[in-house]
């Protein structure tokens, strides 16, 4: 329980916010016409979300494909410019930062990608891949060999393999290379975008343990994006659930899994199968109808209402706000009510 006990031991530090996201919006325009280009609509990828990430914690961001998780990650790192809203890192607004100021702040934020095959340049050696951030930032000391070796060792790779190419490694080892690269600049925040989804079960556990150890040793803060709720329960301290560009529920990990209050969170939790035949066959399952609607024309009012088993007329008229409705954590549902779905 590294993070949980640490948090209890040093409450004043863990209370500090590292990241504050306020009313973040990203619309991708849809245009028509060649000569006279005009915007005919927009993909509402992220539509007004707010949350904070505290120093040293892991915030899990869950939701189905198309919910806006990856766009949120990219906005956080300013790989995309937001349509409106703010992202602050240690009080500094990075959405308006430019030039050298932006460069400075970018050293503090790194990313680990989903696909360990696509995210490493096949023509670069491991030494070049892991050392590149150091070189770019002029933090390359004495040829950097020692720094790279140390990083490789830290992520469980043999430093003697630094001159090898990515294709000589297995999927799990490649993900370790990606982690070493993210670690090179000793960032404060690492955004992990589905870092174990492409890996086999037995290798997945190795990577999750490694990420937990690194967090403890380097005092890292993670935004951990995943569609897999079982993985998030293992890694996150707090969890935010996204649906169609909105955060619908956010709360402490165990509270959110034990007593979810938003119907979408409830459906997600109940849909994740438990690897225990007796428990799994006895538990209640909420099976949602249909698919996630198009983010071009999101439903009026509550966006989840088209698939919701609790939807009433008011859901179409009035958008529920993300506020604490007396359950100890914020949720965005007019009819929020806790439900226990895990036996």
């Amino acid at each position, binding site marked *: 329980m590294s993070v949980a006990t640490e948090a209890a031991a040093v409450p004043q530090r863990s209370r500090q916010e590292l990241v504050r996201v306020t009313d973040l919006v990203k619309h991708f325009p849809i245009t028509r016409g060649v000569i006279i280009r005009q915007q005919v609509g927009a993909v509402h990828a992220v539509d007004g979300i707010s949350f904070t990430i505290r120093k040293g914690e892991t915030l899990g961001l869950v939701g189905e494909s198309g919910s806006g998780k990856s766009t949120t990650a990219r906005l956080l790192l300013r790989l995309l410019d937001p349509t409106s809203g703010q992202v602050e890192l240690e009080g500094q607004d990075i959405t308006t930062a430019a030039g050298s100021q932006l460069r400075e702040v970018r050293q503090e934020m790194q990313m680990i990608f989903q696909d360990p095959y696509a995210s490493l340049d096949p023509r670069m050696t491991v030494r070049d891949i892991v050392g590149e951030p150091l070189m770019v930032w002029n933090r390359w000391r004495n040829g950097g060999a020692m720094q790279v070796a140390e990083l490789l060792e830290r992520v469980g790779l043999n430093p003697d393999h630094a001159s090898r190419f990515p294709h000589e490694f297995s999927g799990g080892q490649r993900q370790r290379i990606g982690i070493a690269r993210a670690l090179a600049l000793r960032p404060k925040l690492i955004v992990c975008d589905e870092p174990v989804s492409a890996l086999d079960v037995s290798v997945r556990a*190795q990577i999750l343990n490694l990420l937990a150890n690194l967090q403890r040793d380097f005092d890292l803060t993670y935004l951990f994006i995943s569609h897999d709720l079982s993985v998030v329960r293992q890694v996150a301290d707090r969890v935010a659930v996204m649906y169609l560009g909105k955060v619908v529920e956010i709360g402490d990990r165990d509270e959110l899994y034990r007593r979810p209050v938003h119907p979408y969170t409830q459906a997600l939790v109940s849909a994740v199968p438990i690897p225990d035949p007796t428990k799994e066959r006895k538990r209640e399952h909420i099976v949602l109808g249909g698919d996630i609607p198009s983010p071009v024309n999101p439903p009026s009012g509550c966006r989840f209402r088209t698939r919701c088993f609790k939807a009433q007329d008011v859901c179409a008229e009035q958008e529920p706000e993300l506020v604490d409705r007396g359950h100890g954590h914020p949720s965005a549902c007019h009819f929020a009510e806790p439900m226990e779905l895990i036996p």
Partner: protein
Amino acid sequence: MSPVTRERDSRGPRDPATGTLLEVEDLTTIFHTEAGTVHAVDRVSFDVRPGEVLAIVGESGCGKTVTALSIMGLIPRPAGEITSGSIRYRGKDMLRLHKDERRAIRGDRIAMVFQDPLTALNPVHKVGTQIAELILAHRDVSRKEAWRRSVELLKLVGIPNAEERARQYPHHFSGGMRQRAMIAMAIALDPELLIADEPTTALDVTVQAQILRVLLDVRERFGMAIMLITHDLGVVAGVADRVVVMYAGKKIEEADVHTLYGNPKHPYTWGLLGSTTRVDRPRLEQLAQIPGAPPSLLSPPPACRFAPRCAYAQPLCRREYPELRPVSSTEHVAACHFADLDGWEPGLQAKELASRQEEAVS
């Protein structure tokens, strides 16, 4: 949803205990590559009984998909080759049948649902047409009747506005809808065995729940057996009757689902169950992990393939391949030298048992 009307062939009673539908015996499938011969499936035996859900579980590269492709006769030649064994459907060895007889079984009596429905569906034909074509190829019906049936099938798997949807192309369908269409196609000829290869892996978890429900519904309605190939131990726990665990081309354990989860005997199965993240378990300080990665299947040594990653391995494990042996009951087998020892379960005790057994043998 109106039930599909069609001729019912004479089939045995839907009692899982009587008879077998498909017997795979000593199946060996190899691939010739530039680096050498890959032993993708190595002397694997199992059977599928009428009406049951048999899960084949394992990580990528363990041979579970190649097993399915071997049954369906879809091993690409000349790169791949079935070098030994038999695949008997109701007693008839499909590897030795005449082409026409084989065709009457594969695709008709045995159907398959693939992981990626977008590549499995033809992008230039309407969804309804693709299902109708299949019916026309195997059954003596009119074009109109085939179309009517394909609409009915789409309805049956829960596609709304089926008449309209049947006239659309695969790219109009969402991932979940495509997988429903694939299932509709697979059950179009009322097969006795449906092979589903990672049918929900590419889907979101709420859609996965829908598709699993559709699969169980069609089994309930038509009484077909399902061979479910997956890496997801959660999915298996929810739907399977029996489970075969594969590792590096070998079957390493087989048991009914409750025994496998309650009393597993192979250290690899222990490792898989231990390293799986669970939505019903508060955070662990460290997840149990299996060190290393699965071995290469180029000329594997005659030894336990899991030994290099096994916490309980003894010299014996690196010398000799452990044949499958019955444990706890005849229905439960495991390929571990120590699986039949009393008190063989994960922990320190197993280490002691293994080293004691090693001394006794050597």
